[in-house]
């Protein structure tokens, strides 16, 4: 029997079952119209075809413990992750001497301590940590390459993810200030500064990175006096930094162009000189506008570090070539490439998330 209410006393009823909760969400998002239904069906079929076999291959049937690819095949049909276990040290440190791994590890941990005050505002003791951040490049240099009483390690021993991080981080840290200077130089009214900046940017942007690396590794030897030894990794670091700085300069120039003329005039009317007005008024706004593009360039640079394999540096791809040539592990390239892809994805995704965080934090608009 239906309950009777007085007029106007009827309590609010929950929405009908099909109009609320998961059911509604699924219907709205997956089955709202004919196109959507077809797309959903296709997607589900695709996932059904791809995911279970992949999970089976990568996890269920995978072999973690083996000393030879044949042992893997004998134990299971799936991925032979044993190759990664056997070579994880090489993929991480390259040919760095094993008894000195602690130095790499220390430098890696310190990197995050040095980055923290730069990346986040609310870090305890930020003021003192910033001094540490400033000193970090020097500290890392001595930790990685040795000197000052530490056993020296030559750059030829660098490899694997260590090499990727060294090139990536150096390129990113080095190219930002250089890029800002080039962008300002390009907008400068001083003829020589302007010309040099434009010529540099256009030359570097007009040449592929591979060519620059090739120049660094091979052609440079012809032009230096015979007998001069110039560390290959150092040459590569310089080229990668210059390359990224040219791109960054254009990105930041875009940001500068987005600042209304009134801001420049306002800074002038306050009596600020060129550098002060740039530092206090213009650049903070220009860099803010450019954040997505700057991070975009950084991610591109980070991934471009894999190109150093063509000049004979042992980045993760270089290590994978050497590993796959060992007849024990031949033919397992899928496993290795997946591992490398995961590493790059994690790094790049972290960068991209940080950029989003920064944009939200700096969002002062309406």
């Amino acid at each position: 029997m239906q309950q009777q209410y007085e007029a106007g006393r009827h309590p609010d009823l929950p929405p009908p079952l099909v109009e609320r909760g998961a059911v509604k969400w699924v219907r709205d998002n997956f089955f709202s119209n004919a196109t959507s239904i077809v797309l959903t069906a296709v997607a589900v079929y695709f996932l059904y075809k791809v995911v279970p076999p992949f999970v089976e291959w990568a996890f269920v049937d995978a072999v973690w413990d083996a000393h030879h690819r044949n042992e893997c095949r004998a134990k299971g049909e799936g991925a032979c992750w044993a190759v990664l276990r056997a070579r994880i040290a090489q993929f991480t440190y390259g040919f760095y001497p094993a008894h000195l791994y602690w130095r790499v590890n220390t430098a890696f941990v310190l990197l995050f301590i040095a980055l923290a005050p730069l990346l986040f505002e609310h870090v305890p003791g930020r003021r003192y940590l910033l001094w540490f951040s400033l000193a970090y490049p020097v500290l890392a240099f001595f930790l990685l390459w040795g000197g000052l009483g530490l056993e020296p390690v030559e750059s030829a021993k660098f490899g694997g993810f260590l090499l990727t991080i060294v090139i990536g981080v150096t390129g990113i840290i080095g190219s930002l200030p250089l890029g800002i200077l080039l962008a300002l130089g390009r907008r400068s009214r001083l003829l020589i500064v302007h010309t040099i900046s434009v010529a540099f940017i256009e030359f570097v942007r007009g040449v592929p990175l591979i060519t620059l690396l090739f120049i660094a590794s091979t052609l440079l030897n012809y032009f230096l006096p015979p007998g001069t030894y110039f560390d290959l990794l150092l040459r590569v670091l310089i080229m990668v930094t210059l390359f990224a700085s040219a791109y960054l300069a254009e990105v930041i120039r875009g940001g500068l162009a987005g600042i209304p003329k009134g801001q420049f005039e306002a800074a002038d009317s306050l009596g600020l000189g060129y550098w002060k007005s740039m530092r206090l008024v213009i650049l903070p706004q220009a860099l803010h506008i450019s954040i997505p593009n700057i991070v975009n360039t950084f991610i591109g640079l980070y991934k471009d570090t894999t190109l150093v394999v063509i000049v004979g540096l042992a980045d993760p791809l270089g290590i994978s070539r050497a590993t796959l040539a060992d007849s024990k592990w031949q033919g397992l390239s899928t496993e290795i490439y997946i591992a490398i892809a995961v590493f790059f994805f994690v790094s790049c995704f972290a960068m991209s998330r940080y950029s989003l965080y920064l944009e939200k934090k700096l969002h002062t608009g309406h």
Partner: protein
Amino acid sequence: MRSLKFIALCAALASLAGGGNAATLDDVQAKGHLQCGINTGLAGFAFTDARGNWQGFDVAYCEALAAAVFGKAKGNVKYTNLTGKTRFPALASGEIDVLSRNTTWTYSRDTDLKQTFVGVNYYDGQGFIVPKSLGVGSALELNGASVCIQTGTTTELNLAGYFRDNNMDYEPVPIETNAEAIKLYQAGRCDAYTTDASGLAATKAAFDSPGDHVVLPEIISKEPLGPLVRHGDDEWADIARWVLNALIIAEEKGITKRNVKRMARRSGDDAEANRMFGNEGSFHEMLRLPKTWARDAIAENGNYGEIFEKYIGRNTDLGLERGVNALWTQGGILYAPPFR
């Protein structure tokens, strides 16, 4: 190819301008190590072991050469990994002292690219591998096939020549490394993969079911592989050449890694061995090397035959037969000039 020539030309010009770099031996001794150019990774010939040391048939030669100069290879040899494209500029520019990277000795590389091949350490030839399911029994039936081929190598040119000579068409699928080729071939991206027969053996060994693939009987080219140095320093070329010869002579005479120390001390009546080990005359002075150079070179990895068996021979995953690479006394064509 044209860009390669251009770079080599630049190299030649620059080395002329720089007054050439004559005494490589002095340079090597001064810097304290041998810089050896090797492959970025080729099964049996150059690969890393679990501890990250480079090993392989080509690497063993670098070690022997370093041992001849310095007494032992450990700590005295460094490696530069080179692709098919970067190997010649690296040698021409002086970045490396010797190139030991399964490189085919050809006329134009010898003359036009201005390099000196110091000998042959592996006689190879180009072949094809195809899946059995393709139903092909001879390379002459490959008309219209797509073929995976490594760029910047002689195999690329041989392939074009072979198909042209036999009035056949093919679709090249260019790739950079052997590992890449294996993937593409297994994925069915190409009907056939062509490279040196030694490489095919290595490739086939890596397949999950080697029985499903067949190496075609035709060998379409001569590929004498060997170490090489720059033009213009004959003394250094002589050292590189005679280290290789010493390894071959050692096999002829049954001098092995195990007995070389003893043999070097008293080689008995064998005059050639006595000359090589400096017990008779002072032949080492002609190379400006220490008296023990031959002993040290052989002690590093053993004689030619031992190196062959260790890295690419019958008991390895590659399982290559000696074939033409046997000594001339055993039906092969491996023949070192007399040590006199």
